């Protein structure tokens, strides 16, 4: 039982990092940015590509892994910013359904680029690093799981501090509260939106790398289901609310792990998405972001 909770916490942390991206972007431009999960996938493939490139050069392992991580995150940031520039910014005055369509389009493009380049089969995410394992109070854990939970906490704290202290962070919050008001005060919506996409790509990229280390295999569609789960978490936590997303991520991760081990692992996504629909029925008021 405690083992399952631990497992759930770690996978929930990865979902939570994806959810933060959804929540931030939705808060600023009111658009569900579908490609969030694909940014994670791209980070994993870019990192693996870097490892393959470097592995024959004889660079020490820790440095190689750090370089690969940096490249992975750079790739997801580049993909996220490119999507913002190509598919979101030109439509900022269009009806809301249009950026929704284009962001879905970007997600399909990214998925299929990797599908064509790499193929449909899963690829081993083999970096040469072997996570250490140990047992603590009867719970088996490994360093990847600890890093997952640590990353979520670190990202949340960093983000909260950024949003409250830094002037660019304040710009994001001001746009989220009142786009027109913020513009009058000299906040550039374009730059703020791009910055938000940058942060969302960053957390999404980290999530993708963590998922890759966690499962040990990566695939072109690995971002799809975590992407939908990230959205579910963003809704449960209250859209625009980073702390809420973290709490919801923990809940969803643990619920999923418990359900998979005690009820049925075949239907674990049914549980999560069923939860989404139930939450929309039971607690819609916490989610209403109306207001003119």
């Amino acid at each position, binding site marked *: 039982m405690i083992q399952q909770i631990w497992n759930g916490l770690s996978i929930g942390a990865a979902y939570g990092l994806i959810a933060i991206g959804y929540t931030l972007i939705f808060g600023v431009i009111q*658009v*569900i940015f*579908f490609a969030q999960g694909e940014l994670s996938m791209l980070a994993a493939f870019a990192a693996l590509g870097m490892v393959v490139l470097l592995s024959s050069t004889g660079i020490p392992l820790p440095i190689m892994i750090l370089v690969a991580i940096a490249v992975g995150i750079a790739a997801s940031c580049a993909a996220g910013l490119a999507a913002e520039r*190509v*598919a979101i910014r*030109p*439509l900022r*005055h*269009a*009806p*809301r*359904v*249009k950026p*929704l*369509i*284009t962001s*879905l*389009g*970007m*997600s*399909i*493009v990214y*998925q*299929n*680029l990797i*599908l*064509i380049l790499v193929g449909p089969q899963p690829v081993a995410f083999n970096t040469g690093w072997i996570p250490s394992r140990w047992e603590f109070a009867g719970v088996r854990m490994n360093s990847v799981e600890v890093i997952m939970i640590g990353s979520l906490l670190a990202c949340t704290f960093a983000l909260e501090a950024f949003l409250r202290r830094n002037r660019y962070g304040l710009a994001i919050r001001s746009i989220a509260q009142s786009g027109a008001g913020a513009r009058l005060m000299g906040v550039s919506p374009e730059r703020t939106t791009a910055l938000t996409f940058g942060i969302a790509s960053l957390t999404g990229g980290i999530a993708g790398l963590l998922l890759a280390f966690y499962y040990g295999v990566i695939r072109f569609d690995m971002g*799809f*289901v975590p992407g*939908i789960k990230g*959205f*579910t978490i963003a*809704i449960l936590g209250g859209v625009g609310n980073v702390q809420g997303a973290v709490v919801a991520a923990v809940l969803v991760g643990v619920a999923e792990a418990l359900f998979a081990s005690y009820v049925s692992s*075949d*239907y674990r*996504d*049914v549980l999560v*998405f*069923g939860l*989404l*629909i139930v939450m*929309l*029925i039971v607690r*819609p008021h916490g*989610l*209403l*972001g109306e*207001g003119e």
Partner: protein
Amino acid sequence: MKKPGPSRIAQPGVSTVPWRSLLLSNLFVLAISFPFLTANPYYIHVATVFLLYVILSLGLSIMLGHAGLLAIGYVAFFAVGAYFYGVLNSRYGLPFLAAIPLGAMAAAATGAIIGLPTLRVRGDYLALVSLAFLQICQEILLNWVPVTGGAKGIPGIDGPRAFGLTAAMPMHYYWVVLGIALLVVAISTRIARSSLARVWEAIRDDEIAAKACGFNTTNWLLVAFMIGAAIAGVAGVLFASIQRFVTPESFGLGEAILVLAIVVLAGGRSLARVAVACAVLFGLPEVLRGFAEYRLLIFGVLLVVFTVVDDILRRRRSHGDAVPATDLLPQDLKRALPDSLRPLGPPATAILLENLSKRFRGVEALKPVDIRLLCERRIIGLVGTNGAGKTTLFNCLSGLVEPDSGRITVVGIGEISSLRADKRSRLGLGRTFQQVRLFNSLTVRQNVEIGALNGRAGLVLHELLLGRIKPIGEVDAALQFLSLNHLADVQVATLPIGLQRKVEIARALAHRPKLLLLDEVASGLNEAEKKELSYLLQQIAESGIPIVLVEHDVAFVSMVASYVVVLDAGKVIGEGLPAEVMSEPKVVTSYLGLEGGCHAGNA
């Protein structure tokens, strides 16, 4: 008196040009005789599946094209129909003919289950919720082996069979699907031309304004969602019956994206474009077999490029043909409010607000206020500086903002505190908005028609079935009263602000309200327009519809209002006749900020 104009609503795309019907009838003959033109059963099969995708696309067009609901996981309903027939036919021998309506109902019911909770919260969540639903369906189809057969699916399903005839050959299947496709075409064309589609478009354009026009937007959008789902369900039954088996892989993300790409490329409106987009996207991979693996990539690129380019072109077009303001000045001011716009019952005589208050986070927009207003045949001005709480008070009255405490009673309508905005509108509250909220993709006349329909399902259904809009008298009268007849068929988005405000008033008058709430109706108008407006408002009030006017422009209020209430920082600081109230020291102080020195000079 002019006679009412033709009563059909505008029908773009329908013309009496003979070549068009000639072309259509030729296409029709070609479609029917297609199986005789090719001996290859494979081509007939491809043509049949093509028709199925036309059906599917028409269903999604209703959701996306009219109602603006991006149901990415739409093919889940296709799966529901297919497995509904597959399971019940192979196990219990459910006949094909019964499965068509039942499959449609099953899919519509599924649509209600995921649509209702989502639409109540936010329409665009449907995009991901429907995608999650598709994922759930896949998981259930793959894992619930005793019922769905798992990955192997269900074999041995009966082909189409009805009235003692059994379809056994590809060409028979083709004709069955063609017949149903024509039926779906007929239904969706009828819907696309009816005011039902205009209602969906209105909600898509501006949900808040649609609520203020009396539409329970959740329910209306749900109807669109369920109709679309039902059409997908029918396509599913057909698909299972012509394939004679079903497997989960026919209902994956790839299929979902294909249908979505067709509908996006078709632009949502015209049937011909749906057919062409379908032919292009569906036929392309059949022709270019070698490029099959690039198919989804191409769809993704198409979704992005097409949407962006289409939006840019559309914006450029709508900038081009703005109506110049000068030649639209009113010709004649001597108009009384026509009888057909008078309220159906006795108009409101008083408004009672008891202990009404509202906070937004830290800001106390409205301190607990008690206001009693006798409004019979009156124009009441609600004035105050920025942030005084005028618009909040208004939104509480019309139901768009829920107050934290208090009761609202309108004598003549009843106690309305607990009613939703759309219900209040149907009971007789008409309103306009500080920032004009029109349905921008509709014409002037269509906007007013939405107002006249006022959320009444019976009227919309009447028009859908009989093709005539019932409250036509109200529409014509409202257009005439505000001298908008010559602009009836102009897109509202191209009108200058003064005319947009008049359209908004016409739309509110068309519900035949018992009380009219006008929010900053004079702002952005020039002096001539203000003069005309003040005359019209007096006409409206004199013929029995009381008006409450939130206004910034003190001169305008003094000109039209017979009673004034002054708000400051969420509290009433004065009320009475305009001339008296506006000279009270407290009010003067509030407006000119004399207490704080003389920095108000440039206000």
